[in-house]
Structure formats: C-alpha cells, structure tokens
C-alpha cells in the first residue's frame, strides 16, 4: 500500500507543471496557475539581468560623479576615458593580457596537479595528515609578496616568478579542500566497501574522489582568482611583461587611464575564468547542487 502510494507520488513529480486529465481543475484555476507560473518566469528573467543592470548602473554613476565634481584624470579617470585608453592601447594590452593569462593558467594547472595529488594523500591517511598539515598551514601563512624577491634571486626576472607565485598562492586551497572531501567520507560507507574486501585505493577511487569533487570545484573558483592575484603581483614586482608590468609602467608615467584599463582587463579575465570553472562545476557535479525542486517523495 505504502509503496504504491509513494510510487505514484514520486511518479507525478516530473510532470508537475502540466495539468492531469483526472484532476478536476476549473478554468479559473488554470488562469490562476498560469499567472503564478508567469510571475515566476518574470522573476527568473529579472534575476538573470540584474547583475548586468547593477554593473551598468555603477559605470554610469562613476561617469556622473567624475563629471559633476570635475575630478582630474590622473586621480580618477571617467569610464569613457578608460574606454578610450583601452582602444588606444589595444595591441599592447592584448599582448600583455595574453602573457598574464598564460602564466596564470600554467601556475594554476600546476597547482591543480599538486593540489589534487597532495589532497588525496593527505585526506586518505590520518598519519600523513597529522604530519603534513602544520607545515602546509605555516607555508600558506607566508605572505606571497615576500616570496617574490626570493624567486627573483632563484629564477631571475621574467615569467618564472609569475608562474610560481600563481602556483604557490592557489595550490593550498585546492589541497585543503580535496583533503577535506576525502577525509569526511562517512565511516559507514567506508565500512560497506571494506566489508566487501575493497583495497584502500579502490575506496579512494570509488568513493573518496567523487565525493571530493564538489570540494575541489569550490576551491577552483577561489584558486583561479588568486592565481591571477599571484601572477600580477609577481609581474608588478619583477616582470618584464604582463598586465601587472603594464600597469606599473603606466603608473610611473602618470598614464592613469591605462592603469585603470589594466584593472578592467584583469577583472574581465578573472571573471571569465571563474565563470568557466562554475560551468564545469554545474556540468560535472549536478548531484551535489540539486535544488529543492528536484526532490520527490518527502518521507
């Protein structure tokens, strides 16, 4: 009895929006239902355009403030001036942005490789966890800007310090999150697999890694943005190219609109990478981000 009821109940859910023929709905009920649906659709549409509206509003406000108070260009350039600067310096900006993107991504990929490997090891063994964790914490608490001069001594000025700084700054969140995901596998689940005679490596592969994926992707979003932070930091201190270098050169020439142009381009790259990370996340671990609407059967 109960089973059947549950089955019918759950079976109804996917077709929830469409009316069923055996349901005695009146015309006015349909109209009201349609109105509710329409309101929900409008709300969803608003939520989608809202971020763009806010950004556009910010830019407009900025422009107005600069013009009304007549703020000099070398203090705060208006968005229109920044835009002009971007189109004027388009080629150097694109070249340097490409350089920054490259160093950032190389550092970020290295961080992924080491972070995943180390995370799996630290997360699966309490012994390694206890031995290694304090060192990791100590390592992470070093301000990375203080490391750059050392990197310059070791590797010289150029691309290498930027890649390594991007790597150093982003491998920690990945390691910690992957380790957390693997270490928090339910003991019962581990027992189920152990009682089947599963090898520890197999438990990591079948349960630990998939379970750590939401943690991993959450850390990727932090890691990619901090990778940019790392590479641009190193470029400003010890670069010969890249957006950070461009901005330092521009500011030394009081070419303030170009500095702002560099900021805008950096933000655009960073947001783009963040969005890509989010897209991959929703594609691969939809199971971890289910919404209330997907639920069926309340028991």
């Amino acid at each position: 009895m109960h089973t059947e009821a549950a089955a019918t109940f759950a079976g109804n859910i996917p077709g929830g929006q469409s009316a069923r023929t055996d349901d005695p709905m009146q015309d006015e009920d349909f109209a009201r239902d349609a109105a509710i649906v329409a309101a929900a659709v409008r709300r969803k549409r608003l939520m989608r355009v809202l971020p763009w509206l806010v950004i556009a509003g910010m830019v407009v406000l900025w422009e107005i403030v600069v013009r009304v108070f007549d703020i000099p260009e070398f203090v705060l350039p208006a968005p229109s001036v920044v835009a002009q600067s971007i189109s004027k310096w388009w080629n150097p900006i694109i070249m340097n942005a490409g350089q920054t993107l490259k160093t950032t991504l190389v550092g970020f990929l290295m961080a992924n490789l080491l972070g995943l490997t180390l995370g799996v090891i630290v997360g699966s063994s309490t012994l390694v966890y206890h031995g290694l964790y304090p060192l990791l914490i100590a390592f992470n608490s070093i301000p990375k800007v203080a490391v750059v001069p050392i990197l310059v001594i070791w590797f010289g000025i150029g691309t290498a310090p930027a890649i390594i700084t991007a790597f150093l700054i982003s491998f920690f969140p990945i390691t910690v999150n992957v380790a957390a995901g693997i270490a928090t596998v339910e003991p019962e689940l581990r027992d189920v697999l152990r009682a089947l005679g599963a090898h520890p490596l197999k438990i990591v592969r079948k349960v630990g890694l998939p379970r750590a994926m939401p943690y991993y992707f959450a850390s990727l979003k932090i890691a990619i943005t901090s990778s940019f932070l790392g590479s641009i930091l190193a470029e400003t201190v010890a670069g010969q190219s890249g957006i950070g270098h461009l901005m330092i050169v521009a500011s030394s020439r009081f070419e303030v609109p170009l500095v702002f142009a560099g900021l805008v381009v950096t933000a655009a790259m960073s947001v783009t990478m963040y969005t890509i990370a989010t897209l991959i996340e929703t594609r691969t671990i939809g199971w971890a981000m289910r919404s209330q609407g997907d639920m069926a059967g309340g028991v």
Partner: protein
Amino acid sequence: MKERPFVEIDRVWMRYNGTGGTLALRNASLTVEREEFVAVVGPSGCGKSTLMRLVTGLWPASSGSVIVAGKEVDRPLSIAGMAFQNPTLLPWRSILNNVMLPFEVVEPHAGRLRRDRASYEKQCLELLELVGLKGFEAKNPWQLSGGMQQRASLCRALIHQPQLLMLDEPFAALDVFTREDLWSVLQNLWMVRKPTVILVTHDLREAAFLADRILVMTSRPGRIMIERKVELPRPRTTEMTYTPYFQDLVQDLRGHIDRARQGEEMAHAH
C-alpha cells in the same frame, strides 16, 4: 554430527584506543548457525555495533576469538554485506549503479563486469523489483524517500549473494509504517536468498518479527545476557504481532533490558 556454527564469537573482549579507552565488550560469546536470522538487542551503547564490526573483521578484537565460516577473522571479510541506519548511497550514482557497486569490488565479479555488464544489471533490476523499486533504477538517491533509499541499501548489501548479512539498525530512522513495510521486504529477501543475518536493533518488536533467535546484551561493557527463540511460522505477518505469544515475548525482552539498564545505574551509583 552437528554442523559447525557459521559465526563463533568466543570470550571476546574489546577495548577502544588501547588501555585508556572504553571497554565495549566483556567476555562476550555467541554463535550463529548458517542461514539463521539472529537479532541482537540491548540498551543503547551496549556494544551491539562493536560486535558487528568484530564479526566483519573491520576492527580486531582486543582478546578472544572470532571465527566465521571456520576461519579466524583477522582482516575485513569479503563475504559480508552491510546496511546501516543511514542508507549511505552514493549521491552521484543512479540507484542501479549504487546497487552495482559490490560487483565492481568483489571478485570474481569485478573482473567479469566489463564483459557481462548486461547480465549483472539484470540481476540488480530483478532484486530492485523484489523490494518494490521497479522503475526507480535510473533515479538518483536523493530523488527517493528515506524508506526507498533504505530498500536500495538492502539491495546493495545483498546483490553479490553474501553469505553473511550484517544490519546495524537499518530501519531506525524511518517512520513506523515504512519500517513495518520494510520488515516484510527484508523477511522476503531473506527467505529467497537465505543469507546468515545478524541484525542489531533496539526495536524489540522488530527483533521478534524478524529473527529466529534473539540475543539480549547487558549494558556496557556488553556481553550476551540471555537468548530467546522465536517460535513463529514464516512468513510472518503484521497480524502475528497482535498475538499474545508475540506480545509476551516482547514484554519478556523488555523486562530483561530494563533490568540491564538498572544494573548499569547501580554500577554508576557505586
């Protein structure tokens, strides 16, 4: 000559974390026959779950011997299926693939899986149908109710035809109606597959409904206090739970457990 018991626990002691830890079991002994359905009941924290992990070899005993299928248990058994209070299904897998999990681990299935996937999937679908989950195999666990998830969890515990099925309060988190439904589902599964079952529970009616024999444990440090045979024909029905025999049995068990708990309070008072 009588066949040797399938599970023999002989004077087992269990202390956690070396000398300073809790003493969970004190001189516990019990035997379980092949294809027998045994329920272990007792006050909470009496070491029921510990007993289960000892039998499956997940934890080693501090002292005493645990013998399953004639062999001393010194590592996790690979012949056991387990189910817990929490269904512990993998949320990234469909119900079907959750039930398939043991085949990916247990030999010789793991080696054959790639080749014979279709026939293994067919076995899973048949078992799912037996517990009333037909048509839900493609769903994700979180799309199912708690009771349905627990059914799937039972399927996963049984799919590879384990000789030993260990159940640790599998229905404790469910509402009364769902729970009694699942008693019948489990009884049905056991009658079809005939594994040896050790069911740990604190629900005395559940124990009386399902088991051939009920073992009552003392409070911690636990050992087996008494045992009761349940003389009810199979398949048992909900109606039987209203008979005087059933109710007297449950009363009797309750009395023993109450005494065990009082003993615990006395011990604390000293």
